[in-house]
Structure formats: C-alpha cells, structure tokens
C-alpha cells in the first residue's frame, strides 16, 4: 500500500458557483431566437383554439386524461391508438441519435428545457445583479441591505417565471380559458394546484440553483451520448495545434513561439457549465457554443483568424495538426450511421402517417364468450355469444346495422334496447358494447363443425360506411 495522504481527500464537494459572462455573437443570437421560439411554443400552445364541432373540445392541443383522448389539431388519438404516441417517442429518440451523431449535443446546448430555462434565469440574474464581475463581487460581499434587496428581487422574478412555467403545464390537460378562470377564483381541482406547485418548485430550484448539476448528476443523456459520437461528429472543440503554447505576454521575449491563444479566459468566463474547453471534450460540455462566440470576438480584436474554438470533428483536428485540409462538412454529416438513423426515422414517420390516413372512424373489436363456448338450444340449434365493442370516433351519434357473412348459413341476433332489430346506436365519441348472438340451426354445417370462420360487419345506416371484424364460431364438433 502506498503512503496515504496526511488527511484523506474529501469524498463530497460543494457546488462551485459559476458566473457566466455576457457574450455577443452568431451562436448567442441563434440561442436567443431558439429560446424565444421554444418558450413561446410552450406558453402559448394551450391557448390556440381549433373548432372540432359541438361535441368535442376546441383546444388545439389537449391531453384529456379523464376522457382518455389526446387532441392534436385535426388528429384525435384514442387509447387503443397509443402506438401513435409510442411511434412519435421512438422518432424523437432516433432524431436525438441522428442529431447527436452528426452535431454532438445540440439538443443539450440549444433546445433542452433545462438549458433554455437556465439561460432565461441567467438573463434575469444579469439584469438584476449585473454581469460576471458584479456578480462575483456580490457573491463574495458580506450580507448587506443592498445584497438582500438584489437577491430578493432576483428570486422574486425567478419565482414568477417558475410559477408561469408550472402554470402553463396544466393548461395542456384541461380547457385553458376555463381552467385559468377556475385557478384565479380558487375553484380549480386540487391536482391542478399541486402540479403547479411541484413544477414551480422544480423550475425555481433547477433553473436558479442546480443548473449544470442537473446535467452532470441527474440527467442520463450526457453519459449515454458518447455512444452516438465518433471522430466525424461535429462538436465544439479547441484547435489545440493553433492555440498552443498559449501565453498572455505578446510583447515578451519568445512571444513569437506562442500560439494564437492569448489565455484571456473569455471561453471559460462565458461557459455556463464552468469548464475550460481547451482541456478537450468533456462530459460537462453541453456544446452551447458560447465559447466560440467569446473566442471569435477576441481573435477579431487581436487580428487573428476566427475559429480557434469552433465546430470541429475530432478527425479534422488530427488532420489539421498534420497540416492536411479538413474534410468538407457534408462528408462528416453524410455517413452510414447518420444515413441509417435518417432511414429508420423516415420509415417510422411514413408508417405513422400511413396509419393515420388509413384509420377508420368506426372501430370494432369482438370478444367471443368462452365460458361456455356454445349453448345448445331446445331445437338443437347451436348458439355462440360475442361481446362487440363499437367505437364511434366521430362527433355525431351514429346508428349501425350489424351484419354477418359466413359461407355457412348462420343467423345473427343483436341485443338492443327495443330498437329495430340488429341496429345499435353509438353516442358521439364513445365506445358501446353490444351482445351479439350467432345461431347455427341444426341443419347448418357450422352447428356440427368444430370451428367456422365468420366475419361481422357494421354499417352506418346513413353514410353506408362499413367496418368489419373476423372471429370464429364454435360448433359441437
């Protein structure tokens, strides 16, 4: 055993505070736009109206948990069509793989809610407490009236944003204007308030205090994403060959030996993850590209070419070090891996769109009663019983005639509440259960055979729309 250190190193570390400096540049501008668009989508979507007729809600995007329906513009998803949601989730996963293998952690850097809200919270922090240097000073300062005032103001604004965030979430699950009225008049269901409370708390804590800790310790994606990346993945990297050896003193002796990096720490100061990109690829890096903007600004000022820190593939870094030219971007992006992800993504997308277009607005399932499989009637006829479920996926009540086709002569008898025989009415947007008897007379072949295939049809009496379902008839055989 080697010599132990005099005092053992700590096994737990406190969070190192990070004070990202303000930066200007093309990636920062892009991020402002993405922040604006994603936040607008999140806060405004529940308020978009979409007329679906008298019996259905008029909210464009609505998850109706109680009614077990999901409304998205003209699409209405029933519980039995949940594969659409599963398909979309698979597409989202594959899309994430595709973008990660092509462009590294662009999801993390630009669109992840944790990044977007943290960015927003830092913006608020900067407005109230000043930029990096002022914030560092305030952090180190003793508690004073001014510090308390600034902190309380910041927390209050954060809290309002957090509450708006939690508040917007619940509008996806109920009619937004009605729920908003109920919330303000304290008449909304308890679950709405508790959801808002929980999401307010998580937004406040994650955006204000946890920030990069969420990415580093709570989110699995930073640990998984390395599997999607290879030497061709474009990611934020430092041109080591160009920057090193770094040095501040441009006028000192031997300065002509130095690389382009002036060690100004601009890239470190703007980093929301608190890392130094010059150390190479790191798990903590969310590739937000703000260090690119910061470095470009400095390079411009000292009259060096931009791109000391840049979107760069590892293979390019190697090639450039040897003096070779980097490969064009399209050759990095178009490679078997990304093509495969794109193909899989498109395949599922096409399949979902196809499934969406072929789906009928009448849906049937049939369940033969198996206890007992058949009943012998006094005249020797054999009767099977079925539970037929008819889903009416439209906004109007519909009346259906239930019919039967079989090569053998069988009689159908649908239990109805005193309507015309074999007719059932299914209310709008509902599922109805009807008991159907199918009877084979003693002389019918199906009566003595073990199993006979048969097909049940329902036909809308007004529109003649049809839907069918196959099942079997159990005979005595």
């Amino acid at each position, binding site marked *: 055993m080697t010599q132990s250190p005099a005092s053992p190193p700590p*096994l737990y570390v406190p*969070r190192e505070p990070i004070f990202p400096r303000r930066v200007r540049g093309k990636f920062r501008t892009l991020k402002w736009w993405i922040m604006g668009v994603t936040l607008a989508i999140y806060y405004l979507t529940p308020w978009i109206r979409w007329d679906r007729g008298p019996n259905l809600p008029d909210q464009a995007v609505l998850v109706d948990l109680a009614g077990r329906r999901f409304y998205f513009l003209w699409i209405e998803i029933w519980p039995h069509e949940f594969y659409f949601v599963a398909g979309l989730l698979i597409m989202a996963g594959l899309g994430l793989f595709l973008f990660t293998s092509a462009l590294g952690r662009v999801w993390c850097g630009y669109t992840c809610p944790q990044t977007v809200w943290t960015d927003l919270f830092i913006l608020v922090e900067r407005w109230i407490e000043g930029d990096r240097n002022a914030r560092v000073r305030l952090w180190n300062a003793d508690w004073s009236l001014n510090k308390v005032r600034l902190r309380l103001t910041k927390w209050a604004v954060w809290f309002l944003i957090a509450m708006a965030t939690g508040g917007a979430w619940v509008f996806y699950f109920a009619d937004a204007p009605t729920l908003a009225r109920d919330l303000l008049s304290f008449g909304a269901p308890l679950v709405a308030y508790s959801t808002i409370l929980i999401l307010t708390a998580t937004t406040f804590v994650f955006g204000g205090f946890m920030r990069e800790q969420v990415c580093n310790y709570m989110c699995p994606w930073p640990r998984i994403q390395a599997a999607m990346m290879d030497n061709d993945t474009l990611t934020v990297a430092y041109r080591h060959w160009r920057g090193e050896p770094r040095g501040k003193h441009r006028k000192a002796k031997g300065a002509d030996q130095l690389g382009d990096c002036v060690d100004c720490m601009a890239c470190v100061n703007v980093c929301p993850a608190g890392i130094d990109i010059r150390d190479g690829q790191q798990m903590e890096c969310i590739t937000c590209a703000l260090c690119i903007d910061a470095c470009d600004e400095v390079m411009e000022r000292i009259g060096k070419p931009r791109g000391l820190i840049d979107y760069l593939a590892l293979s390019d870094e190697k090639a450039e070090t040897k003096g070779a030219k980097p490969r064009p971007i399209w050759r990095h992006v178009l490679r078997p891996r990304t093509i495969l992800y794109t193909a899989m993504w498109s395949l599922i997308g096409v399949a979902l769109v196809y499934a969406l277009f072929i789906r009928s607005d009448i849906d049937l399932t049939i369940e033969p009663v198996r206890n*007992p499989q058949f009943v*012998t009637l006094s005249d020797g006829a054999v*009767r099977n019983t079925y539970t037929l479920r008819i889903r009416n996926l439209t906004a109007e009540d519909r009346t259906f005639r239930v019919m039967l086709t079989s090569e053998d002569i069988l009689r159908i008898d649908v*239990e109805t509440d005193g309507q015309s025989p074999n007719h059932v009415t299914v209310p709008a947007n509902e599922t109805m259960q009807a008991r159907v008897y199918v009877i084979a007379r003693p002389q019918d072949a199906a009566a003595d055979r073990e199993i006979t295939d048969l097909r049940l049809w329902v036909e809308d009496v007004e529109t003649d729309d049809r839907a069918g379902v196959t099942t079997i008839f159990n005979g005595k055989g």
Partner: protein
Amino acid sequence: MADKQDIDDVTGTDTTGHEWDGIKELNNPLPRWWLWTFYGTVVWGLAYTIAYPAWPLINSATTGVLGYSTRAEVAERIAEVNAQNAELTERLASADLATLAPDDPAHRFGVAGGASVFLAHCSQCHGSGAAGVQAAGYPNLLDDAWLWGGTLEDIEYTVRHGIRNETDPDARWSEMPAFGDIMSDEEIDQTVEYVLSLSGQDHDAAMAEQGMVWFQEQCTACHGDNGEGIRELGAPTLNDAIWLYGGDRETLIETVTYSRFGVMPAWGQRLDEEEIKAVTLYLHQLGGGE
C-alpha cells in the same frame, strides 16, 4: 486538503490513496447536495415507518401514529359506494321486475350487481359462465329450456324458494318415482327407446313401439302425451335437444331406474331482497330469459 496529492497517471484524477494489488481507487467526489438528499431520504424513510404501519411485532405490527389502515380504507370506500348506491338499491329492492324498464338505472344496476351475486353464490353449482354441469344435473341457465319457467317472475320465485329443499315450505317440488321398483329392466329399456325416438335420436323401432305403451301408461301424467313436459310440475320436456342429466341411452336408463332428486337452496333465507332481484335480472338477460 492533503498536502501530498496522489494523482493517477492514466486519468489524471485524484485518488483516495487506497490501493489494492496496484489498483488505485479514483476519487470523483459526489456533490454535497447529493449527500444531503441521501440523508433526507433516510430521515423520510424513518419518519414514514413511524407515521404508517411498518415495524413487525410478534403478533402484529406497529400501527403508526397517523392510524392509517388499508383494511379500514377499503371498508370506508365500500361504505361510501353503498351510500352512493343507496337510492338505487332501495329502488331495486322494492321494484316489480316485470315492469322495470331495461333502460331504468335500477335495471342496469341490478344486472351488474347480479353478476357479482351469481359469482359469489350460484357459480359453485351452475358454473361461472352459468352453463351448468350436466354430469351432476346442474341446469344450464343460458339456453331456452326452463324446468320451472324462464320469466322474471318464475326465476325470482325459484331463486327465492329453491327446489326440493327441506327449509322452505314454498320450495318448488316434484319427484319422479324410481321406476326400477315398478318396471322390469326390459320394460325400462323399451321405454327408453321410445323416449329416444321422441327427440329424434337413433333408436330400436320395435322396442320403441312397445315402449310407447309403457310410456302412455307411466309417464304421460307428468311429461305430457308427446313428452312435451309440464312446467307446473317441473317435469322436463323430453322431445327437445336439452337434457338436464344427459339424453343418451345409458343415462336415460339410469334416470328412469333410479330417478333423480336435484336440490337447490332457498336463497330468500340467505340473500337480501335486492340481491335476489339483481341475480334474477342478471339470469334473465343471459340469453334464455322469457
């Protein structure tokens, strides 16, 4: 901090100073908030076991300071549901089933509740699907043949008073003699051949001709001239496809020789009024009700 850092060469990471066979333990410290979260869960877990029933004792367990019990909660929920349904229950218990409309909420309530009553009290003999057990003479309740009648009124009476039991003086009652004491084996064989012919089954025509004479003499009083049965007496129809104990030659000989004596309890003594009404409604809508 240690004054002498022990840095791993390969990763450049601090080590804890622990080493086993040349393998050093790297020190990637956890965030402190994680530690506090861990302590928090420990405190929460302990508090939970104090607040709720948890710690096992010899014959029981601690009850928890909140006094929560799943059993009490179930009882409470049942009481809640019963209170909600009180009006329907009352309406069903006092209803005249023959005039209760099928779309009446009490009717639907009865059918749904009747299914539970059936499974709890009737399925032991009649089967969970109500198809009966022919080998034991438990009737199939799904078909269109009823020994004592298949109207709501008939079914309700049968459920309430039962069949051939000693406990209810109003029980349905009929008894077929054991013809083994009255007729010779040959006469019984001939009668059975005739009974087989009534329902169109394969039979010996010569024996059946003789059997018809015995049938006219012994059986028509209860089973009718053509074996059509008489419901008031609970005498089964013999010219259809449905047999309580079985319609083959062997079973018929056994039935005629030794007779049958199936018993059903009087459920009026065991079930509540609304339960009887409910199970009647349930049975009537299974496919055979008249």
